[in-house]
């Protein structure tokens, strides 16, 4: 019997790590991975609450979050490849001009 707040704290820590990574990292792929980390933290929250309130719709929603994450990472990675081809760098600090 683990208190639910433990699961929520774990989810919060994962989300906080994701936000930190999003803000301090300069490589665009690592920034993307921090977004995935945030989504995973939220998924854990969903499943934990679903277990507490005995509502399976929590687990179904996790399913949708995963599908959206998959679609978003596919398009995002394609954009990253396109950016790399035109700008030649993966550092977000150097991609700051509209003109090439």
């Amino acid at each position, binding site marked *: 019997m683990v208190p639910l*707040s*433990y699961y929520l704290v774990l989810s919060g820590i994962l989300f906080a790590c994701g936000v930190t990574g999003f*803000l*301090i990292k300069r490589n665009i792929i690592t920034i993307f991975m921090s977004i995935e980390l945030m989504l995973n933290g939220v998924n854990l929250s969903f499943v934990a609450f679903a277990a507490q309130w005995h509502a399976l719709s929590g687990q179904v929603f996790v399913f949708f979050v995963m599908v959206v994450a998959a*679609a978003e990472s596919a398009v995002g990675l394609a954009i990253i490849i396109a950016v790399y081809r035109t700008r030649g760098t*993966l550092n977000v600090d150097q991609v700051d001009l509209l003109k090439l």
Partner: protein
Amino acid sequence: MLHLIVFSVFGLVCVAGAINLLVQRHPINSALSLVVVMGSLAVEYLLLGAEFVAAVQVIVYAGAIMVLFVFVIMLLNAGVEDRTKGSRVAMLFGIPGVLIGSVLVAWVLLQHSGTGSVAVGALPGPPKVIGWLLFHDFLLPFEVTSVLVLIAIMGAVVLASHPAEMQQSAQPDEREG
């Protein structure tokens, strides 16, 4: 008791993986630690009884999305990242801020959340029941996400194709017009 031990072990693995993602300088190490995080999250889902969600997490998230990330890192030959001025400022103010914020939130959650305990396998989520829910109560979101995935596929194919092909296909139209 065993529940608490397994939860703590895999919770620690999750947190260690997340911190490793932040600390590592080469993106491939970050990607692999993210895979570890996802794997241990799948175990946490199993502890809560969500077996189908855990399996889908491993198959889709750790087995397909992260493979995509690893591909892109290998293709683009992303090297070790360098420190820039912006990130120094963010690190100096941000990391203590995030630490204080999370400690505060964790303390509030642990003391005052007003939620009870969950047992092992508290809400079993067999594929049959989840499938029923997906096709009956959540049919509209299901169909909408399938359209979303279709759009994502088309977008990714268009974005990742070589620019030269696009120009070649544009030229005959110009000549005819």
